[in-house]
């Protein structure tokens, strides 16, 4: 693997910066189950980092550790060059880390617009007292947020479902709205847990395009979990491979593809 200590430029000319997030010797246990076993890896500014592995490998658990939903049993999470103290998920979100879920977590009773609007919660300034006594200012802020949200709606091509309660939308569109809500936070780091699961080919292509565009246009760092190897190879700059809670590979898509441990894991070679 090439030396990337100070960042590098990708084949398609995107500039990748220094380390944004670093997982140091993370272990996560649930009772007897070891979901993550002493894993370390980094995420660099501006890159698209994929996490792959067979079912139950611990990929979602890793994303949950990053986003604060799970507290690691051992190990440290470093963010922007500092060890991060133990944080609740909402605190992580306020640091500029947005996410989507494997099993879609939307506000089902709210419209597409409201869902995405809620994504801007961390960016909303005025507090309760101001809203009560400073109605005008709150209104102005609201309309500014509204504008940003409309841009995201245009970007994701979901104008037609702006007012639809998301509970009524088909699966593929729900995934898209969930991405929209995460984008609304203007995150530094975007975590996507299987953004293309259950989609048809056309929907997958759309989603891939959105992910690339987000990374390209806003410089958003993205960590994503994906099962479709074709998609992973196309999208990601670097890949972490997990199996049974362990890291078995880390590198560019090409490096990973030719890694014997990875090939074994995917072909189902028995463990010891």
């Amino acid at each position: 693997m090439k030396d990337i200590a100070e960042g590098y430029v990708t084949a398609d000319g995107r500039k990748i910066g220094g380390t944004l997030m670093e997982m140091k010797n993370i272990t996560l246990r649930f009772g007897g189950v070891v979901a993550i076993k002493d894993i370390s890896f980094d995420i660099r500014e501006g890159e698209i980092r994929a996490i792959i592995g067979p079912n139950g490998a611990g990929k979602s658990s890793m994303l949950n550790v990053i986003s604060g939903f799970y507290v690691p049993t051992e190990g440290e999470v470093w963010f922007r060059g500092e060890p991060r103290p133990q944080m609740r998920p909402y605190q992580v979100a306020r640091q500029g880390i947005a996410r989507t879920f494997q099993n879609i977590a939307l506000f089902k009773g709210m419209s597409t617009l409201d869902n995405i609007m809620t994504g801007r919660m961390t960016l909303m300034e005025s507090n309760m007292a101001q809203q009560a006594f400073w109605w005008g200012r709150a209104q102005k802020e609201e309309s500014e947020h509204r504008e940003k949200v409309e841009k995201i709606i245009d970007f994701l091509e979901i104008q037609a479902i702006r007012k639809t309660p998301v509970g009524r939308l088909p699966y593929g569109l729900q995934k898209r709205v969930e991405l929209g809500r995460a984008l609304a936070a203007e995150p530094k780091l975007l975590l996507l847990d299987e953004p293309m699961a259950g989609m048809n080919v056309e929907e997958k292509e759309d989603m891939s395009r959105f992910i690339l565009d987000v990374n390209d246009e806003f410089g958003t760092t993205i960590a994503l979990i994906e099962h479709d190897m074709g998609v992973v190879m196309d999208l990601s700059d670097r890949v972490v491979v997990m199996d049974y809670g362990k890291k078995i590979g880390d590198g560019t898509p090409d490096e990973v593809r030719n890694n014997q441990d990875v090939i074994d894991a995917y072909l189902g070679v028995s463990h010891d």
Partner: protein
Amino acid sequence: MTDQFLYAVEVMINGLMAGVLYALVALGFVLIFKASGIFNYAQGVMALFAALTLVGLQQGQVPFAHLINAIFGTEVHHFGWHLPGLVAIILTIGVMVLLAIIIEKVILKHLVNQEPIILFMATIGLAYFLEGFGDVMWGSDIKTLDVGLPQGASFWVEEKTAILGTDNFYGFFIDKLDMVAALVAAILVISLTIFSQYSKQGRALRAVADDHQAALSVGISLRFIWVLVWSIAGFVALVAGIMWGAKSGVQFSLSLIALKALPVLMLGGFTSIPGAIVGGLIIGVGEKLFEFTIGPMIGGATENWFAYVLALLFLVFRPQGLFGEKIIERV
């Protein structure tokens, strides 16, 4: 218009006024249930506790006086002040917010992700604790609550409406306190609706009510929202406690107004704010009209049970409540 008809109208108006108060109590339940899935059994006792605290603070009662005197052999009872109603109300709001914070820290925090029945049990425990705590803090004697609300029938209304009927009809008999209660409750309901629809915290509240995980992921602190809803519920309890307390004194039976909210919830659903309002009005009007029309034929005192029968009937035909969507289970 016949006098009989006018009396019926008067009964209906009184029913509406009572209904607004039922709606208010029901609203306290709905808010907490929506945000945390907890059926707060303690809502009624919270109203009692709020009213006790209000009276105690206003009259300068020393809290825990019995306890203090028993331990230290002192004879303290009063601070010797008498606060204006508004000041006492504001202080009591502070106490209810404090109570919300303590409930979150001591109870809710430890019960995250527990079964709803466990949380329900916890609120039963809370209800009895709060009842006892209120007694120890403020004493268990019946107190009169007077924050300067008008009492008695409104002569103005009586006079203005007297011309509607014959000589036998003296005009509508409407309690001034009921009118104030209805007005306050209406304002409260409207401001709560505006708050939940248009403010940042309101949106956060709706988000938490809809999906906890999603709410966390957009940076909402569940614990803050819980403190917020319990504070609001405490405030609603205080308002209900004031209205009811001013009417019939502050005593244990005040906590039973929660029982009036149950049929309202059966009718309006546990998650619908409009449901609580309309449900409250229907129950209020329904029980008064029933007592007026059918009551005399079957020996009266129908108000104790009619609301429940009405709610039960509704439940059979619309299990999802007045405004709930019919749920068809996916198979």
